[in-house]
């Protein structure tokens, strides 16, 4: 057949703007982007917001404290204790579920989805996982309270907000890290925990090859000793607290620079300087380009982004504009296989389902291997296509596509194809979708086509 010889599709500039940088076309976005794709995508980078009625991290703490208090009272009554246990866990789980769903739905329905992808990028960059009762409730609050408010601003502000957020402090055990020479340590025999400091250097700022030494880890760890969280049963309210008596006294040296003893400001200044290190610019720009463009971003693109970072105090909006302005980001051939999360969100955007089932949406992510806040590592989910392209992962995607197509008896695959991919469809894919034996099969084939799987 003649269609066997057709080559795969190239992406139009509009499709790159909408599908590579955003979460995929919804409605007539391709048409809107067409006349000036670069301008359009830059105008898309707008502030976003969450539903405000969901639990705050402070609520999670208060509930957790209440649970611990009652647990003490009920220690003698075993059956009541298990009941309590369940109640509290449900609270945390419900909070997690509601917040995870909120993020997903906002991404699906947003008219400027690129901002939601940027949020997801940083949420994964500062990955926290649901490990234990308290973290189950807290995990999803980090992106809401620390990342989103700083999403389009300077990286150092986001970094500070994240490292002082209770979710991160507890996830990486800094709430109990005290200086060896602090009053608390001497009195209660407590000491330093390097966990958060190490991940700040290795994962959040410089990167593993960023040129820091073990001594820098210890110095940073000491600099942020006393960064802790309130215990609502002993202190009023909940949230971040600096415990001066737990802070290591003295001057610190990080990457050769001295930091005078100034309490909480010592660690804060260390973080601000880390944010502006060339190694941090390099590492973050690489990760951004790797996420938004290609697994092998071109050196020219990276150079443009790094320069922008260093000249603009690590301003995230400016760095993203530099990415959008660079021709190297607009390569016509598809560069990257979508992660399960990208795939599900882009499919939902393309299909524009009227009704959606929250539980089913979360289950989709679980079934395809990307359960929110469950990366299980502070490094987050992989952003490499080779990690998502496995055989069983692909089979699960096929099953999912078949399933969701089964719900959509009315969907017109041709129309969906036009809205989602525009002209960026190979003849082979076009023919196979149009010649499918049923509407359901047509839609499954479209969702599973190389053009829809890649961006």
């Amino acid at each position, binding site marked *: 057949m003649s269609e066997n010889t057709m080559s795969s599709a190239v992406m139009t500039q509009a499709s790159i703007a909408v599908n590579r940088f955003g979460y995929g076309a919804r409605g007539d976005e391709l048409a809107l982007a067409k006349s000036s794709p670069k301008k359009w995508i830059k105008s898309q980078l707008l502030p976003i917001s969450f539903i405000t009625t969901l639990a705050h991290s402070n609520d999670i703490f208060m509930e957790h404290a209440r649970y611990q208090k009652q647990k003490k009272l009920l220690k003698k009554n075993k059956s009541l204790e298990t009941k309590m246990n369940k109640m509290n866990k449900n609270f945390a789980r419900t909070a997690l579920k509601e917040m995870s769903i909120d993020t997903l739905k906002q991404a699906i329905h947003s008219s400027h989805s690129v901002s939601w992808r940027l949020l997801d990028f940083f949420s994964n960059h500062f990955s926290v996982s649901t490990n234990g009762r308290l973290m189950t409730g807290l995990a999803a609050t980090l992106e809401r309270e620390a990342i989103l408010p700083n999403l389009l601003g300077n990286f150092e502000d986001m970094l500070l907000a994240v490292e002082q957020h209770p979710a991160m402090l507890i996830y990486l055990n800094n709430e109990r890290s005290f200086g060896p020479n602090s009053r608390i340590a001497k009195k209660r025999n407590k000491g330093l925990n390097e966990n958060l400091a190490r991940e700040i250097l290795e994962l959040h700022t410089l990167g593993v090859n960023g040129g820091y030494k073990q001594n820098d880890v210890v110095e940073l760890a000491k600099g942020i000793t006393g960064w802790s969280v309130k215990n609502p049963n002993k202190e009023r309210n909940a949230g971040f607290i600096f415990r001066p008596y737990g802070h290591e006294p003295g001057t610190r040296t990080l990457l050769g620079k001295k930091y005078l003893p100034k309490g909480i400001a010592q660690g804060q200044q260390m973080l601000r300087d880390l944010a502006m290190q060339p190694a941090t610019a390099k590492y973050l720009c690489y990760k951004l380009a790797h996420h938004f463009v290609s697994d092998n971003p071109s050196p020219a693109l990276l150079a443009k982004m790094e320069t922008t970072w260093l000249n603009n105090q690590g301003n995230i909006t400016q760095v993203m504009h530099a990415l959008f302005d660079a021709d190297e980001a607009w390569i016509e051939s598809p560069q990257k296989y979508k992660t399960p999360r990208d795939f599900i969100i882009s499919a939902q955007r393309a299909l524009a389902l009227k009704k959606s089932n929250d539980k089913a949406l979360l289950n989709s992510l679980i079934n395809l291997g990307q359960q929110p806040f469950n990366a299980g590592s502070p490094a987050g989910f992989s952003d490499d296509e080779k990690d998502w392209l496995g055989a069983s992962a*692909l089979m699960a995607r096929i099953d999912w596509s078949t399933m969701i197509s089964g719900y*959509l008896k009315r969907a*017109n695959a041709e129309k969906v194809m036009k809205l989602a991919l525009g002209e960026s469809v190979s003849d082979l894919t076009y023919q196979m979708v149009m010649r499918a*034996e049923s509407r359901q099969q047509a839609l499954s084939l479209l969702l599973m086509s190389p053009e829809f*799987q890649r961006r």
Partner: protein
Amino acid sequence: MTKNNSNNNVSNEFSTNLSRRKFVKMAGSSLALLSFPMSSVFAFEANNNVRSNPKIVWVMLRGALDSLHTIVPTFDTQLKNLRPKLFTSFKGPLLPLEKGFALHPSLKNLHQWYQEKALLPIVAVTSGYQQRSHFDGQDFLESGKSEIDHDSGWLARASDSKAKRALAVSRSTPISLRSGKQVNTWYPSKLKSADDDIYNQLNKLYQTDAMLRESLESGLAVRGLVETDKTKKNKRQGQFIDLTKACAKLLSNKDERIDCAMLELGGWDTHNNQSNRLEKKFDELDQGLAELKQGLGSEWQNTVVVIGTEFGRTVKENGTGGTDHGTASTLFLAGGAVNGGKVLGEWPGLSTGQLFEQRDLMPTSNSYGWIGNVLAQHWQLSSQELKQVFPKVEVYNEVLIKT
């Protein structure tokens, strides 16, 4: 288009040399080919022997079933010339019906029912749809209005006219049951394995994408291993036999009365390797329907299963061991309530002059005419009510239901 009800002579003209123009005219209007005065069909209304709980199961075969490979006209000498490979590809002896027709060897249970007079194969039928698009053809067949209406289906309108309760074994309501007042959907809840056909399609789709193709191939290899394990095979949900089994259970539930159900089975679009593919599909269909009968138990006697497809396939085999989109196909009526054991429908012949557009089996009757008859005799729909169900088609006069 003008309505042409009074033309009782069309059938003769039809079988000899019906042009496309005439077919179009006929399909768009009444297609009253075999129709006799309507009164005799509705005589059943007065019949005391009416079943108290008559059930209908509508099985839609999506993808266009090749009727010539299903009900084989062994007497037609053209067949061997038109299909040198397909005609000799059957792996077992054909199962004989009357008038020289024969069923595909895989349709063992259906043949058994034929012998028990519980199966009526009808040859050379059409819904009146005249193009060759699967989507539109299926929508057309399901809506029953001789035009596509995505919001209302024939089974829904038939159910509503007698306050019947319907079930779609599907994730969402198919067109056939849309606009119905008492329609439920049911489907196994777990993520099911996709139909085999989608893998074949994707394999083709990935021919220019080595990475995706490689993953698909190893994924299929793994599933292949899993499937040979019997315990695991049982866990695969959403296969046709599971659906018919569950459907039978729901239909025979005494507490929650359900009068009709719709099932769907895809995988009939056999552009290539038709012989092997249909052998498997017929096995699946035949065993699924046998499971339905088994599950219905004594209710089988009150049941009519209607099995149809959007259109037929080309009379000539193509270059890849398959057939392409065509026109007339086949309709089966099965079940204990069916007055079966014979082959209905006029045979149009296979010589070039007898084909539709010189390539497809020429339709000689309209599916709705037969289904309407079932609705009249089995559910006692009046001619007024049938006008709501199939507005443009007259019902054929033939005793299709056992009295």
